[in-house]
């Protein structure tokens, strides 16, 4: 027995594993009403009577076939770590489907406890389950729970303690007689010849002879997996065994006239059907539910799309309108506290001017600016959480499927893109729920087009400055433009490097849930905390770096005078950005874009810090502070026109994702795709921003730039097509 026994939580997607994990460990993991909330296993500690258990929350899976990365994560964990107890969570309102995984876990010989979740929904649907009777068939206890409310934990805790100490052997499943005969032959051969090399497969463990993970059960499971055609186990067979095993499998296929994997699945369902018939009573015939009635409208061919756009627009409208009263209050309070009072306090201490400026105006001002972005981000996260918890996300994926197909992706890929509204990093991780590797890479490349929460402060800051009356429309327009650009890019990539068809689309539509206040606030809190911590850290670092680079001066100015390194660097990059409206005097904008590579929130902090410094240099600290909106005026003057501000915002929307997202791309898909995303997105951002600026501020020279951009577009397309001819996915 381990010092800290391991309890693994396994079950179908969206049955409440994470809710139980949170209830056991007191953790605050995000839960949601859409398949794929957990894409990698998470661990926490559960304590009972001074005894500690390690609880593992596995991704939701339908089977142990290992068809998708999340299935592999769950399966590998169970096989390699051999948890002391598996708590299998099954949705009581859909027991038959959920028991399929239970049966597979039973075949593994794992010590188990079955928790029935959503018993309230089952009761509402007229389903009654005799849990005790079910447990007697399965060979281990079955406990009904309602996981989205306060957990009645005593019975559960007691069961966990007992089962870890005295694990119970699950019942074994019997297949068709002929299948059993061939299965027996494969099994015997594997045991006799040690065909799979027990050590190599990581399944033998002689120390735990008394444990239910014994060799015989494991080898029977291996024999079943061989019949199912498991590529990993088949690859490990000795050549002499392989021939014999293939002969037995062919005999099964001939006997049943089915693929061997389908034979096994059918027989498992045969066992399950018998079980369900015995232990489940239906008071009402299983007809259409409330969710079906709502779906008749929400998924309607005519009304579905307008409803979808209306919902998305309402999200942004709610975020902008609801946050308005709070922005002013937060701005006034934080500026008074962190800029005025802190500045006065530091002055009374007799600190030098540059240090006072750095601490109060730059750092305090930066924090105050970020503070004003908390309300819109908070409200946008609340809206997204309501959508996720209600079950609308999966419906949105269905509605979006028509467009997604046109760009060569299955509708399911829309869920990672929606997650991208929060942050690109989890969005890239969420692509793991897609079955095909091609779809995973393709969707990951498109996720940065969706404006993450970190871009919102930049849109709000410049939007309020240049278009104070139509800021909400501008912000919605930018979000929408990002989606349009994602579709255009997707369309181009489908024709060039992702030429094959998208993977098959099978997705469950979860029933609508009434979102709980606790769930929404937890979801929002997680995201908001991440934003505030990351923004705070980045702004602190960027502001320190910017001030240091402004202090260091080199005699490389236009007339040989000493010029700050930052200004020299900014002026070096600015000519490249000049065609998109960034004037040579607006070099702080170039520096802000560089800082945005670390985190997008840093763009605002950098602009404020640099223009604040300019103002202070021109007028002195006290004078500039007294003039309300002085920073804003100098920023407005530097950009010159609203056309250059729009072009700048479009560049921010489209250019390379932040360092964290690039790292995630590298981790998931390797260096090649990370570099592709960086290079392609930055080039595209420059081209589109230049095109927009040249059209909006049309002059004689604009034609030259428009023609140049069009030539660039054609060259990129030809180049990608040539790459696609050799290495198309």
């Amino acid at each position, binding site marked *: 027995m381990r010092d800290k026994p391991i309890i693994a939580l396994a079950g179908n997607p969206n049955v409440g594993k994470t809710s139980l994990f949170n209830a056991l460990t007191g953790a605050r993991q995000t839960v949601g009403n859409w398949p794929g909330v957990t894409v990698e296993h998470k661990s926490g500690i559960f304590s009972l009577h001074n005894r500690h258990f390690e609880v593992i929350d596995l991704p939701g899976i339908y089977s142990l076939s290992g068809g998708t990365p999340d299935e592999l994560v769950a399966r590998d964990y169970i096989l390699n770590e051999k948890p002391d107890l598996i708590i299998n969570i099954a949705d009581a309102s859909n027991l038959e489907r959920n028991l399929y995984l239970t049966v597979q876990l039973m075949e593994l010989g794992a010590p188990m406890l079955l928790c029935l979740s959503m018993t309230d929904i089952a009761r509402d*649907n007229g389903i009654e389950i005799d849990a005790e009777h079910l447990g007697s068939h399965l060979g281990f206890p079955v406990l009904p729970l309602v996981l989205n409310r306060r957990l009645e934990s005593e019975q559960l805790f007691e069961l966990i303690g007992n089962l870890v100490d005295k694990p119970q052997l699950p019942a074994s499943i019997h297949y068709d007689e002929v299948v059993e005969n061939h299965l027996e032959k494969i099994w015997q051969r594997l045991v006799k010849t040690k065909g799979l090399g027990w050590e190599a497969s990581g399944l033998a463990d002689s120390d735990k002879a008394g444990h239910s993970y014994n060799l015989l059960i494991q080898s029977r499971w291996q024999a079943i997996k061989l019949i199912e055609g498991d590529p990993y186990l088949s690859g490990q067979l000795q050549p002499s065994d392989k021939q014999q095993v293939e002969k037995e499998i062919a005999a099964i296929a001939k006997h049943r006239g089915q693929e061997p994997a*389908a034979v096994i*699945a059918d027989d498992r369902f045969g066992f399950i059907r018998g079980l369900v018939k015995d232990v489940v009573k239906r008071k009402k015939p299983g007809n259409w539910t409330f969710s*079906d009635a709502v*779906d008749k409208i929400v998924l309607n061919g005519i009304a579905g799309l307008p409803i979808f756009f209306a919902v998305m627009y309402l999200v942004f409208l709610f975020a902008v309108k609801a946050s308005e009263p709070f922005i002013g209050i937060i701005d006034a309070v934080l500026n008074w506290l962190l800029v005025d009072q802190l500045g006065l306090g530091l002055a009374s201490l007799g600190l030098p001017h540059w240090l006072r400026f750095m601490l109060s105006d730059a750092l305090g001002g930066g924090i105050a600016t970020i503070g004003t972005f908390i309300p819109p981000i908070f409200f946008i996260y609340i809206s997204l959480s309501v959508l996720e918890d209600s079950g609308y996300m999966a419906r949105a994926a*269905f509605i979006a499927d028509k467009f997604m197909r046109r760009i060569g992706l299955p509708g399911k890929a829309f869920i990672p893109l929606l997650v991208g509204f929060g942050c690109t990093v989890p969005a890239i991780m969420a692509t793991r729920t897609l079955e095909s590797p091609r779809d995973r890479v393709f969707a990951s490349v498109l996720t940065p087009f969706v404006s993450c929460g970190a871009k919102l402060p930049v849109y709000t800051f410049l939007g309020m400055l240049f278009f104070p009356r139509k800021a909400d429309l501008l912000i919605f327009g930018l979000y929408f433009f990002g989606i349009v650009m994602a579709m255009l890019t997707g369309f181009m990539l489908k024709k060039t490097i992702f030429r094959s068809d998208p993977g098959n689309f*099978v997705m469950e539509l979860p029933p609508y849930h009434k979102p709980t206040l606790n769930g929404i606030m937890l979801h929002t809190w997680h995201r908001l905390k991440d934003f505030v911590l990351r923004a705070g850290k980045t702004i602190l670092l960027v502001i320190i770096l910017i001030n240091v680079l402004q202090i260091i001066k080199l005699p490389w100015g236009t007339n040989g005078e000493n010029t700050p390194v930052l200004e020299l660097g900014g002026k070096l990059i600015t000519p490249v950005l000049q065609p998109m409206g960034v004037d040579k005097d607006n070099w702080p904008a170039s520096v802000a874009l560089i800082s945005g590579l670390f985190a997008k929130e840093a763009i605002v902090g950098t602009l404020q810090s640099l223009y604040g410094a300019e103002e202070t240099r021109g007028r002195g600290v006290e004078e500039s502070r007294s003039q309300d909106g002085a920073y804003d005026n100098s920023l407005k003057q530097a950009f010159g026109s609203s056309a250059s501000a729009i072009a700048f915002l479009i560049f921010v929307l489209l250019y390379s994702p932040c360092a964290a997202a690039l790292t995630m791309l590298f981790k998931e898909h390797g260096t090649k795709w990370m570099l592709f995303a960086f290079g392609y997105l930055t080039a595209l951002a420059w081209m589109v921003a230049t095109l927009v600026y040249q059209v909006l501020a049309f002059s004689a020279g604009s034609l030259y730039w428009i023609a140049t951009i069009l030539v660039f577009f054609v060259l990129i397309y030809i180049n990608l097509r040539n790459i696609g001819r050799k290495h198309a996915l």
Partner: protein
Amino acid sequence: MLFERHRARLRRWGRQFRGRQKTCPCAIDQCFSLDQLPQGSSAIIICNRNLKTIERGLYVGSRLSMFRNDSGEPNIIVAAGDARYVLDRRIAREIRVKVME
């Protein structure tokens, strides 16, 4: 006398038939593919060779209802027990069903 390269070619050519789907044991007029099941109808699955859907409960003998089937859309929605699935038409074509009266 065949050269080794010809034998290899022949083997490769023969391999394409190895994985060929066996026909469904159901007369053509008795059953049809799931994507042709009209909206609102119920049916029993007669053949299904797609493991992904079998694992989700669309096994042979299970009963399902067509919740939504618009020929202009790439997917259909079926109700199997208490679950609702969005299925790609390509997958739906692999599943043969018999309408329940």
